[in-house]
């Protein structure tokens, strides 16, 4: 379980680009075994990705998402934890 008390940072091994409201992530790789892994983040996930700059805690990110997307804190927290878990599972973020 990812903790919202911690600070997370985008991995240097990920190339990303904002396209409209979405964002594409492509991991830098050393082998051909995982070439299908190109990730597309929706608007909320793309904003979370932007905020994962190594300075804000999970709680601070949740608060920003709550403000910007007009969503209840509980729902924002649930979504944030889900996105953090997914990003951590593909090594797209590191813990500070």
């Amino acid at each position, binding site marked *: 379980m990812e903790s919202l008390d911690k600070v997370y940072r985008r991995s240097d091994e990920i*190339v990303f*680009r904002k*396209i*409209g409201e*979405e*964002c*594409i992530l*492509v991991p*830098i*790789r*050393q*082998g*051909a*075994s995982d*070439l*299908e892994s*190109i990730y*597309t983040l929706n608007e909320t996930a793309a904003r979370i990705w932007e905020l994962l700059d190594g300075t804000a805690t999970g709680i601070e990110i949740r608060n920003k998402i709550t403000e910007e997307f007009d969503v209840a804190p509980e729902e924002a927290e649930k979504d944030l934890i889900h996105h953090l878990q997914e990003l951590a599972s593909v090594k797209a973020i590191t813990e500070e």
Partner: protein
Amino acid sequence: MIHEEPQKGNRLEIAGIRVSWFFELDSDPSILPPLVLKAGSDITLRVRRHSPPTFFPKENAFDSGQTWALFRSRGRLLLQNTSLHSEFSPSRFLFLAPDLKSGDLYVTDDAPQEADPLGYPLNQVLWILLLSQGRGSLFHACGIDDDGKGYLFLGNSGDGKSTTAKLWFDQGMAVLNDDRIIVKEKDGKFWMHGTPWHGDFKVHSSRDLPIHKLFFLRHGQKNSLQVKNGAEAVSMLLARSFPPFWDKEGMAFTIEFCQRLVSEISCYELAFVPDAGIIDFVRNIQPQAQSDS
């Protein structure tokens, strides 16, 4: 020192990218004199027909798992024509300068003699490297010249590229290639270029022309069309491309290039039935087709 004789030179040009090479005979393998770049070429290669000198410590950059591997060695790239997992020993080694303007190719005695000393797949990987320097990208695609209208059909293995090539060829249209197409931007337009690599369909053309429409192929129960754009289209393009997955800068360029491509060219997912009816279906697509039709 490099002498004019007995060097013998040659050149390969694909998609406007020129690779020149010359053979350096009877040279001491431990000596690498300065290499004179050939005018008008993007990269000049010095070819030596013997094993390479002992490698410096090297870092694995990318392993294809099958036919090639790429290393970094003291600022240079080293490309060899086998994977680290292969049961065969490599017979071609290409050392590339950091700027990719020059390189030294070592071809061992047991390597097959080919008109192009790089051979496949080193030639294709070299083009991927050169394209990623801001020139364009290589795609898993079939290119059709429909009397001046360029249709680019992208797909992975089994999606119908060779079937598509044959259907259009049988109607008298030119096939640039049924499996590997290079796309470059020139004068504000995106151009597709034929390549000599790979593919089941043997009648290829080296010509180039602007892309009119772009299709993501798949087999279907009927011919149908769905517009693709934005991040979804970029992601579909990347999944059908040969980008430099090992290189952050090159990868960033490739994503940005794909974004510009899908913003300029109409993109569709095309489900098709493999008969000649697909040709009129494609020709009659209306510019604003938005959903299944």
